[in-house]
């Protein structure tokens, strides 16, 4: 059932966009632009990504390639190594490698370039009201480099003077936000941390999956997952890519895509958007440094 839902959604999108019989006039004109995509977007939505790719290729008159890897770290490493031109990553790796990356665009969700982290639990577990109620639970993080799926819940515990390494009975990573939803929904974990944007996108694409979970706590707003470029990107290419992203709202098919992605568009972001994430990162680092120092 889950598959059918998704396939139907993709088919509706593809047909709606009218791309099926479109000639590809830009073919072979220029170098392929490699663009990394992390689990900040449910990258297993292959049909949606493919439609977006075709739209961008037509817009840029360049072939592009969406590169996906199994963890944030791999994408971060690839773009830092210059093997990707652009990447859609999380705010946490962005602030960590800010000096090596250029902020290109920030998605607009619910009218703002901001999003939240959600702490979720199985729908039948009605007791916990906040992350502090989850002591001794098996907890699913999405990715060690995720803000919403790892940094924020750790920070939330550190802020409450809890040791995130000891607070839960067991933790594991699912390496994708959507899989955190599954892990909690199927009971592998008794709670988890997930990107609020992804959670709500998945809720519309795979309602059954999300229906088995409930949100225990919503985090404060953070800068949304940034689209970044490698430091040494050609400014013209960066400008063209930003223009293409920004132009999605001007185009019917672009708007159709944005609706499917549940975004309002892409805007030129401000580095200051990510200050709060940077603050959490420092708090986390200090906590770990203190912990190291306390060790005999």
């Amino acid at each position, binding site marked *: 059932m889950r598959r059918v839902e998704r396939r139907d959604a993709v088919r509706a999108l593809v047909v709606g966009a009218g791309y099926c019989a479109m000639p590809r006039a830009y073919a072979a004109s220029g170098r392929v632009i490699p663009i990394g995509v992390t689990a900040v977007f449910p990258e297993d939505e292959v049909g949606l990504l493919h439609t977006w790719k075709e739209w961008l290729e037509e817009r840029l008159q360049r072939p592009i390639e969406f590169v996906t890897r199994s963890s944030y770290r791999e994408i971060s490493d690839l773009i830092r190594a210059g093997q990707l031109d652009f990447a859609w990553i999380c705010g946490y790796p962005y602030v960590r490698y800010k000096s090596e990356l250029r902020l290109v665009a920030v998605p607009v969700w619910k009218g703002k370039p901001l999003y939240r982290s959600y702490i979720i639990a199985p729908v039948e577990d009605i007791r916990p009201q906040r992350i502090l109620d989850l002591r001794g639970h098996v907890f699913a993080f999405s990715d060690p480099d995720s803000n919403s799926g790892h940094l924020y819940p750790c920070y939330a515990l550190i802020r409450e003077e809890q040791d995130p390494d000891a607070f839960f009975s067991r933790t594991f990573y699912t390496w994708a936000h959507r899989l955190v939803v599954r*892990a909690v929904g199927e009971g592998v974990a008794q709670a988890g941390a997930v990107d609020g944007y992804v959670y709500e996108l998945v809720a519309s694409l795979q309602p059954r999956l999300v229906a088995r979970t409930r949100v225990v706590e919503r985090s404060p707003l953070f800068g949304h997952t940034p689209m970044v470029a490698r430091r040494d990107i050609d400014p013209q290419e960066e400008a063209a890519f930003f223009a293409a992203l920004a132009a999605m709202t001007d185009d019917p098919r672009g708007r159709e895509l944005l609706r499917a992605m549940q975004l309002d568009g892409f805007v030129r972001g401000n580095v200051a958007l990510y200050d709060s994430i940077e603050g959490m990162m420092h708090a986390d680092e200090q906590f770990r440094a203190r912990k190291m120092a306390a060790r005999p």
Partner: protein
Amino acid sequence: MSAFRFPRFFPQLSLRYKIPLRVTLLVLLVALSVTVAIVLRQANQAREDLDRYSSSLARALANTLQPYLRHDDVWRAYEIIRSAIEDAGATSSGSPPVIVTDATGMIFVSSKPREFPVGASLASIGPDFAYFTSLHRPDATAESAGIGPEGSDRLFYAAPIKADTVRLGDVVLVSSRSALWPRYVEILKQASAVTVLALALLLPASWFWARRTATPLVSLASAMRKVPARLDDISEDTLADEGDEIGELTRTFRSMLADLKNKRELENQVVASERLAAIGRLAAGIAHEINNPLGGMLNAISTYRKHGSNDPLVNRTLALLERGLTQIRASVGALLVETRLSDRPLTREDFDDVLLLVAPQVDRKGGAIDRDVRVDFPLPLPAGQVRQILINLLLNAANAIEPGGRIGLVVELPDPVLRIRVHNSGRHIPEEKLQYLFEPFTLAAGEGSGLGLWVVYQIVKQLGGSLSVDSKPDSTFFAVELPLDSTVTQLPHGQQEHERASAAVLD
């Protein structure tokens, strides 16, 4: 050994039902045991299949999961076991839970995390699990296949997850015995269908065969029940005549039946001839008692005629007395058959004379005599006696034939006897009269004196011959056999011959 007695059911029941019932019972037993054997074999097979499948799944999962256990990657391990049982789960009702434990027996991950939560101790899940963990050896080579506590539905299969020789944990498959039930039921259904089909073919065939086996015995028994009272009711056609033991029994029974009939015949004959002898003795005694005074009375009448008065009334009365006494003497003589033995041998003329004598009687009925005399004359037999036999038999035949009927006379000489056969068409002698046929006055219903056959019988006896009769509707046969007697021609007249005749009658 001897103390054991096989219980007998329905000892009164006829073999007609007993044999088919036994055969049916045997067929049912065989079918049932074959079915049970097949079902047990198949059920064993099903269990072996489950063991093999579960063990190999556990081993395959253990190999695949090893790196994820090493990297502490709960989620990927979970995805692997989920996809493994989703692939396989369609085969049985509900996929068996797969549990991955770490080296300390804690659940690393399981396919049903709500039942077997991550981080819980496997032994703490329930008594079955504690039983399993107590049995499963914690080393890198230990595999467990299908162990589970008695009375529990659960079966455990375990394969160690090992890196080199280090055991990182186990893959534990929890299968259920009851998961096999649908397959058992299916096996049972199939086996039952085959059994019913086989029975549908076998039962009528075996019933038919058993009935065939029983039938000869049953008809033999029913024939035997009629012995000895109703021998003639036994129809021997219903008795089987095959080469087996029943056939042997039937043949023995038949020969016994024949013996019985012969015996009865003989007894009848003995009874009849004894009766005839008694009658003969009685008649001879009476004849002597009567003949003595009779002779005296006749002598007295004769004397009176010679010397007495010539009174006409007396003479008339004496004549009346003399006729009466003479008739008495004739009747007694006939009863005694006190015939004189002929002094001469039998010639062809004797036959001609007799035929001439009976011709008027035959002609009156419009009948005819077919004569077949194939002997050379003269024969050493007393002619007078043979003539008397012939006359009596032919006259009887002439009486018996319907108008226009035929009489046959056959005379043969199968040395050393003369055989005379008289055959006639027409009324036959009823069965109940045959056995008294040769007694005096048996057939004296209107025609004749009733002494003819009695006379024939007496003469034949005197001559040492035999007499037989066979009477069927429309056909009656009398046969007389007389031994040739070489003394006849040398017989002198007179005393000797008279003595012989008397002796024969008195004998």
